[in-house]
């Protein structure tokens, strides 16, 4: 009996020490993207997204993350661009308002590097993606930084007259910074 109590006490002590980052700070987080338009790198961002995060650096295997990006909050850098990409050939935000990323396995690569496998769903299409990320902490705040490349054609983003890649390239670099605090 004493052993069991001791085990519980120890477990309690450990879980008290383990820091789990769960509170995403939207004002200190960003989801940006870069694409090439006739050889010109153009930057944009998504202004709104919701997220659920459970990340304990001591237990990366148990980490979980879900992001829901509000596609209508896109900022392409030009108002007519924002309007265009909300439309049917691009995101079709009326039918598919959000893009969703759900994490699968999180693999520690050593140091502060991780590899997050997951599924990305945009416009009714789901693709497996592997997202490299670094995680740095300061006090009770942790910051994930990373980027990965998606191909817009995999998600039918930019159909019809936009489907060819001579004007807007297929590759889109998604760059993110997610800041989260522990409870």
């Amino acid at each position: 009996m004493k052993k069991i109590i001791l085990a519980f006490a120890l477990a309690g002590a450990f879980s008290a020490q383990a820091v789990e980052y769960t509170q995403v700070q939207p004002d200190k987080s960003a989801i940006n993207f870069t694409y090439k338009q006739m050889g010109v790198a153009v930057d944009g961002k998504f202004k709104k997204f919701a997220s659920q995060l459970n990340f304990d650096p001591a237990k990366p295997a148990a980490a979980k993350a879900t992001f829901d990006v509000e596609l209508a909050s896109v900022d392409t850098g030009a108002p007519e661009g924002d309007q265009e990409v909300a439309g049917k050939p691009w995101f079709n935000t009326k039918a598919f308002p959000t893009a969703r990323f759900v994490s699968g396995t999180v693999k520690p690569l050593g140091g502060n590097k991780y590899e997050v496998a997951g599924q990305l769903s945009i416009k009714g299409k789901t693709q497996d993606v592997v997202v490299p990320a670094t995680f740095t902490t300061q006090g009770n705040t942790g910051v994930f930084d990373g980027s990965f490349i998606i191909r817009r054609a995999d998600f039918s983003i930019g159909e019809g007259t936009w489907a060819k890649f001579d004007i807007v390239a297929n590759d889109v670099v998604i760059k993110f910074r997610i800041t989260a605090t522990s409870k």
Partner: protein
Amino acid sequence: MNYTKTAKVLHWLMAILLFGLLALGFYMHDLPLSPDKLKLYSWHKWAGVTAFLLVALRLTWRIAHRPPALPDSMPKIMQFAAHAGHLMLYLLMIAIPLSGWLMSSAKGFQTVYFGVLPIPDLLDKNKEIGDLLALVHKSLNLLFVAVLAGHIGAALKHHFIDKDDILTRMLPKH
């Protein structure tokens, strides 16, 4: 006195290029967003960079080669107006591509010459400055059209009314 071959080539090359640029500029900015619009914008920027390089070359060349003098038959005030008009054309040929370049930077769409050579951004992305520079670019072009109309009108007046060689000395075969 005739213009040199180099002066003529540069003059007419730029005439064709600048008319194309003006027409394209006024045509493209009202188009709804489409792949063609983006293509035309890129072409316009590439042509604009080319025009800027040509005007730089032309000015450098002109420093060492004075153009032929205006005829004595021209009143002093008209000679002054002619020189002022040409100065204005040169200033606008420099200011217009510069304003376009800065506007592109401020709007967040860097100019990449022929899609290969990035022209550095001198300004950071800024909506207000971008909109202001768009207005500057447009106004300078409207002014350019007005001065060009004066330039062409004056050349025709010299040819058909004054019957001097001001127009013909810039023509290819003379």
